């Protein structure tokens, strides 16, 4: 099945080449598209040097819109599987075959790679762990199935889900809300274990204040989604 790896990247000149190499080695058959989200550094150039195709957004639109751009590309080009693989080096390409397997087997429309199912210890601050646990409960409740890692950006979608994402994809902090939207649209969803690296370089985009904004925004978005007509 034609597979596209969508790599959203914002100012990732240090990590992007390693990420592309990693994907190449572990999933040689897949095409890679880097969505440069208006980076101020040489992310786009570095990605091209590494041999990836690059789509450069003229403005910094945020992760949600960047991933959606990749989905629009995947849909237009007729890809059957699209994978989101973050450009910061956090995700492991070794886990890619496992991530797309449920879609290849036709069992599901979308897959989330969960670091909490992997059995690997994943260290994070307690505030963050708590935030994720709260979101996990909320999302699981609404999705009607257990979602252990709703904020994971390591995910795959089949053509049906890609098409859905082209029309509906939340803009900022989209992961948890996207799960809810998918389930509300009646799509099948599966979680698979996926190890993740602690960050290689750069700093996380989540500061305490943003963390709070994240929780409030995502919760509000999910509640509002519930009130919208199907």
């Amino acid at each position, binding site marked *: 099945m034609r597979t596209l790896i969508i790599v959203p990247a914002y100012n990732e000149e240090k990590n992007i080449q390693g990420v592309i190499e990693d994907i190449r080695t572990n999933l040689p058959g897949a095409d890679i598209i880097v969505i440069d989200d208006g980076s101020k550094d040489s992310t786009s150039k570095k990605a091209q040097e590494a041999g990836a195709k690059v*789509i*450069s*957004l*003229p403005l910094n639109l945020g992760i949600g*819109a960047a991933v959606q751009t990749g989905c*629009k590309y995947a849909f*237009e080009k007729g890809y059957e599987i699209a994978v989101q693989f973050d450009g910061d080096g956090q995700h492991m390409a070794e886990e890619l075959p496992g991530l797309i397997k449920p879609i290849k087997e036709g069992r599901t429309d979308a897959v989330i790679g969960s670091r909490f199912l992997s059995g690997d210890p994943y260290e994070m601050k307690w505030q963050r762990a708590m935030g994720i646990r709260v979101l996990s409960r909320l999302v699981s409740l609404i999705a009607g199935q257990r979602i252990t890692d709703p904020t994971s950006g390591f995910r795959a979608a089949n053509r049906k889900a890609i098409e859905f994402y082209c029309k509906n994809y939340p803009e900022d902090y989209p992961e948890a809300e996207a799960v809810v939207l998918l389930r509300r649209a009646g799509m099948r969803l599966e979680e698979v274990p996926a190890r993740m690296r602690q960050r290689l370089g750069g700093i996380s985009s989540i500061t305490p204040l943003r963390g709070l904004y994240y929780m409030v925004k995502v919760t509000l978005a999910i509640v509002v989604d519930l009130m919208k007509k199907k």
Partner: protein
Amino acid sequence: MEFLNIATPVASFIMMLAVVELIRKGRLKEKYALLWLFSSIVIFAVSLSRKTLEWASQIVGIHYPPSFLFLIAFGFLVLINLHFSTVVSELSETNKRLAQEIALIKAEIKK
């Protein structure tokens, strides 16, 4: 004659003129001017006669008529702001779509 009796109608009339002038010059679209125009007309009308204002404020139970004027003005400001928030949201959505399309087309051309 209190200061407010003169100031309010004058101010709201100037406001009305300013909005019309901006529309005329093409710097303000009618769509976004409607609420401004409507609010200045209402405030102008209500502030013209002390009697109307007193009568209207008594109905809603406000003892100091000028504060009824403030209430109306405040209500309109809230409405206008809310309207603008929806406009900004629409703009950011169309902006996003345009940027995405441009990026996709640019990638297509480069090939």
